[in-house]
């Protein structure tokens, strides 16, 4: 027998037990996805999150690696979501003057958008025969992953399913917002950013930053505010949502 094969097998056993592989794979997949995204002239459909996730799922599935093993390495990237969320205060601060002027429109939009996101998600799922667990997991889908998971847990949804639905919502918003804006002739960067951040949290925010600094800052604001608003509103809306 070829003596190289068992050696490779041993190396694989060693590597798959260490967090190095999951971490490195995440970074490699993302950089390849980002390269492809740029090659497509930044087209929203070539979304880096979507491409990375597809590549990683394919690799993990092909090698029979459980998600938990992968996450032991990927958690180091996942952890950075916390400090990155805090860091959103800085672009937000750069928009302070505009923020003060727009406080009232922003607040009204926030409440209306937050309720629309939760109620429409649950109502449409119910209309198409989704289970109660699925409906409850969908309610917080427009807010950033850590908040959404917390809300799902509180209202009796499935936090890990919510995390996935949140990511898909983010990707859909990042890809689809430009078509909605074109249809409605929305051109103001402030409005484009705020609505996208409200509906599609951090992934929408990342997309808005590619459009302009101003759109990105308002998307970050909407994401933060909608995290708060949804955390407060969804538990209150629960009697209406879960029927």
């Amino acid at each position, binding site marked *: 027998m070829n003596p190289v094969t068992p050696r490779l097998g041993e190396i694989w056993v060693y590597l798959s037990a260490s967090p190095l592989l999951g971490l490195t794979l*995440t*970074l490699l997949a*993302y950089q390849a996805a*980002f390269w492809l995204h740029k090659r497509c002239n930044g087209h929203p459909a070539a979304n880096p999150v979507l491409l*990375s*996730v597809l590549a990683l799922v394919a690799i*993990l*599935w092909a090698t029979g690696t459980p998600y938990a093993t992968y*996450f032991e390495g*990927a958690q180091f990237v*996942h952890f*950075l*979501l916390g*400090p*990155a*969320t*805090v*860091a*959103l*205060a800085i*672009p*937000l*601060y750069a928009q302070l003057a505009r923020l003060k002027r*727009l406080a009232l*429109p*922003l607040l*009204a939009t926030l409440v*209306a958008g937050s309720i*629309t996101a939760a109620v*429409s998600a649950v109502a*449409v*799922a119910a209309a198409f*025969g*989704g289970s109660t667990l*699925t409906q409850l997991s969908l309610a917080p*889908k*427009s807010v950033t992953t850590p*908040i959404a998971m*917390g809300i799902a847990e509180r209202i009796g949804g499935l936090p*890990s399913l919510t*995390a*996935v*639905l949140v990511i*898909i*919502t983010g990707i859909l*918003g990042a890809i689809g917002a430009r078509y*909605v*804006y074109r249809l*409605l002739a929305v*051109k103001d960067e402030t*409005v*484009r950013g705020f*609505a996208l951040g*409200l*509906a599609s949290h951090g992934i929408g925010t*990342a997309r808005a930053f590619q459009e302009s600094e101003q759109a990105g800052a308002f998307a970050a604001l*909407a994401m*933060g505010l909608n*995290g*708060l608003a949804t955390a407060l509103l969804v538990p209150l809306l629960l009697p209406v949502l879960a029927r």
Partner: protein
Amino acid sequence: MLAAITLLLVYQLAGEVIAQVFALPVPGPVIGMGLLFGTLAVRGAVSDELRGTANGLLQHLSLLFVPAGTGVMLHFNRLADEWLALLASLLVSTALTIAVSALLMRALMARGGADEGRES
């Protein structure tokens, strides 16, 4: 860079502690963002170091969602069973939320006549 990262972590930690102590439904990092925003608004300036570190972290914000997104593989069964309800819900709700928010905000801003750069 080290000082800026430490600062971000301190604010996150403060946010987590506040969320725990007051049993708030809002996660710590979001409270940390609010605290840092408040601090900057009071101080009236951002150091170059903090701005540089924040930009570096936010430049590849998308990367940070990849590990959670890969968790989709845990839910293939449910996704296969309920794909129509999920897809319809996510598509309709996301588009509707963007449309409602954009239209309302544009209308309110036009009424206030507040901002520059709006289409006529």
